[in-house]
């Protein structure tokens, strides 16, 4: 059988039901076999969108999403999407066509050294030179993409390798000598961690994206409730813990909740789970770790000590480690009540900020419209975001109730990610509503995915918070550059209602709360994508704000 056929059979063996992609010269043999297979092809209008769709699919299903692109520009267009998945540890298998083996290095038409270019942005990559290698690299690729700390894997397959005949044997097991993603839970360290938590006076839990990746929601909640420890999250970890829970303080960081940032800086001990202590979450590294004992639980040993000095390190899958922790706490009956000064203080601070944080006075202020969205969305709905002010408002004002239903490009911060990722999420979960909380600047980057959404029957809602500008940049220019506004004005272009309609989607402009409510309800009942264009005050800032290079203590608050 030819290599392209071996590829399709191998993908089917891995349980792949759909691929996102765009054909071209160097992957035509693959597409010819895709035509003959049962795998669904979801056509995109730009390869970057295919990568984001695969990423969204992978984060929601926790199985690698698959994207296809041709060689040269097709492959380079995937790069931003691959780097986004790598930065957020999302499982993905990207398959690119390559020029024939004999043409590699000859600057052939549509040749690019995608293996070299993608190297720092992938978890691993393969370029098979014979068709016989294909089944094994598919098996290994999926295994690497989805185990340990997940990430993107690139399979770059020269055209002649796709076309040549070879013997097809799909391996039963994976053997990679230098890859050992599973380590046994470190029981002595878990014991030490419990001891440290029990003896500290002001403990806090910091839940990161790792909790969501390993679905350790129940374990996290048990520990928080048994020991009465308040929970903050990173932005990537938003929704690792129900945000309507009495112990929830919400995300910390540059645009964290005021109460979360304040209490994080007052804590004397943190149980940090599945987080890499990004600068956007913790501010300056030195100030964050001052007077703070850090228990760091992570599947990736290289994260221990990278940005912070740890008191106790627990390496291993966080769900496995937390399970043991829960058992130990139960066995030793170490439950705690909230009758202590720290718990009382936490509640006071939380209540104060929930009542006193000044919000935008207008009818269509960010907090009001996002709370309206929350009110009308079923709790199992999946939300993605773009990157910018709307993203940070979503972090502040959209409470995630069901854990693991909120996804964003948090690491690379890729504008344009949210909409195709929402389409990928809808592919994985057609049974739940999917909403992309968007800004106009970001939506511009991938709005052509409306075609895919409409034609492939993957209806999602674009909740477009429209300030007719690159709002976050505008906020920085207002705050740090003395209002020297440049390069941020997008004017009223395009008209998003007409844009949506031109793709066969539904476009609704909502200029009042009534209109917004009707629009959201209409979107939830629509068979096609709905773009809700919500004009807001372009001068509204995201606050609180921790300026870059400063500590969480130095929050700028609404005046």
């Amino acid at each position, binding site marked *: 059988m030819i290599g392209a056929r071996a590829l399709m059979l191998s993908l089917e063996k891995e349980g792949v039901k759909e691929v996102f992609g765009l054909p071209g010269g160097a992957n035509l043999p693959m597409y010819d076999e895709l035509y003959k297979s049962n795998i669904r092809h979801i056509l995109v209008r730009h390869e970057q969108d295919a990568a984001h769709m695969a990423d969204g699919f992978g984060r929601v299903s926790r199985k690698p999403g698959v994207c296809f692109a041709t060689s040269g520009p097709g492959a380079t267009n995937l790069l931003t999407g691959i780097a986004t998945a790598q930065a957020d540890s999302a499982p993905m298998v990207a398959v690119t066509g390559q020029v024939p083996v004999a043409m590699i290095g000859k600057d052939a038409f549509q040749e690019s050294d995608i293996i070299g270019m993608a190297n720092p942005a992938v978890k691993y990559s393969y370029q098979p030179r014979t068709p016989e290698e294909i089944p094994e690299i598919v098996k290994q690729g999926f295994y690497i993409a989805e185990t340990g700390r997940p990430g993107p894997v690139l399979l770059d397959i020269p055209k002649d390798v796709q076309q040549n005949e070879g013997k097809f044997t799909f391996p039963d097991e994976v053997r990679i000598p*230098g890859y050992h993603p599973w380590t046994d839970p470190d029981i002595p360290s878990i014991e030490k961690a419990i001891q440290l938590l029990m003896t500290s006076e002001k403990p806090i839990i910091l839940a990161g994206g790792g909790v969501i990746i390993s679905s350790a929601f129940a374990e996290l909640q048990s520990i928080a409730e048994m020991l009465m420890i308040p929970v903050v999250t990173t932005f990537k970890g938003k929704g690792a813990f129900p945000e309507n829970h009495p112990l929830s303080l919400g995300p910390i960081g540059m645009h964290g909740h005021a109460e979360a940032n304040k209490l994080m800086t007052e804590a004397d001990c943190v149980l940090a789970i599945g987080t890499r202590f990004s600068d956007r979450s913790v501010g300056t590294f030195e100030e964050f770790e001052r007077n703070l004992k850090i228990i760091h639980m992570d599947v990736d040993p*290289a994260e221990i000590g990278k940005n912070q000095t740890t008191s106790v390190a627990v390496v291993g899958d966080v769900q496995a480690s937390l399970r043991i922790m829960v058992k130990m706490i139960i066995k030793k009956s170490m439950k705690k009540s909230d009758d202590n000064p720290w718990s009382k203080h936490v509640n006071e601070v939380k209540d104060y900020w929930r009542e006193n944080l000044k919000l935008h006075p207008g009818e269509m202020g960010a907090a009001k419209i996002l709370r309206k969205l929350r009110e009308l969305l079923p709790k199992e709905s999946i939300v993605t975001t773009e990157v910018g002010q709307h993203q940070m408002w979503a972090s502040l004002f959209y409470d995630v109730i069901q854990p693991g239903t909120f996804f964003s490009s948090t690491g690379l911060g890729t504008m344009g990610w949210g909409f195709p990722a929402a389409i990928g999420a809808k592919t994985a979960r057609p049974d739940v509503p999917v909403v992309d909380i968007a800004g106009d600047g970001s939506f511009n980057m991938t709005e052509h995915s409306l075609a895919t959404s409409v034609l492939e029957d993957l209806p999602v809602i674009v909740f477009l918070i429209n300030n007719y500008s690159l709002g976050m940049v505008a906020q920085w220019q207002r705050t740090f550059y003395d209002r020297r506004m440049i390069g941020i004005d997008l004017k009223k272009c395009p008209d998003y209602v007409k844009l949506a309609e031109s793709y066969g989607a539904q476009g609704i402009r909502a200029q009042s709360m009534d209109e917004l409510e009707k629009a959201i309800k209409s979107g939830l009942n629509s068979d096609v994508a709905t773009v809700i264009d919500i004009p807001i005050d372009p001068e509204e800032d995201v606050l609180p704000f921790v300026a870059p290079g400063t500590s969480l203590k130095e929050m700028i608050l609404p005046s």
Partner: protein
Amino acid sequence: MWAILSIKVENKPGILFKVTHLFRSRNFNIDSISVGVTQDPKFSRMTITTIGDEKQIAQIVKQLDKMIDTIEVHRLDENNTVYRELAMFKIKVSKPEDSMEINKLASAYDAKIHDAKKESIMVEITSTPHQIAAFEELAKKFGILEIARTGITALQRSKH
């Protein structure tokens, strides 16, 4: 701080690129690097010397270990390791007595003479970087025309 890292990798194309790229993208330094196949041709051994503080070196080891193509990564204990580098010097001969003096210097450092010509002598020295630096210092007075060095290679001593 100086550290010697011994890295066993799969003997496949592109691995050297990935290892050096890791140093670049993580903002680490490579002081020297040498690579060769092991007794099992499926694997190669890289010996990399690097400079950084304790925390950085611990990070380098962890990041290298995380790479899928690396089988083993060890930071060698300098006091318990035999490490050597080969260096070739082309040294200028300005007057007849230089030739004899260079020979004497070479034999003091267990170095070999190659290609002794009227105007230059090539010397091969295998030693520690420290000794090579000392030799270089002494050879300077004759005038050094060219140097080529291999970078360090190393093996840890056995325990028994």
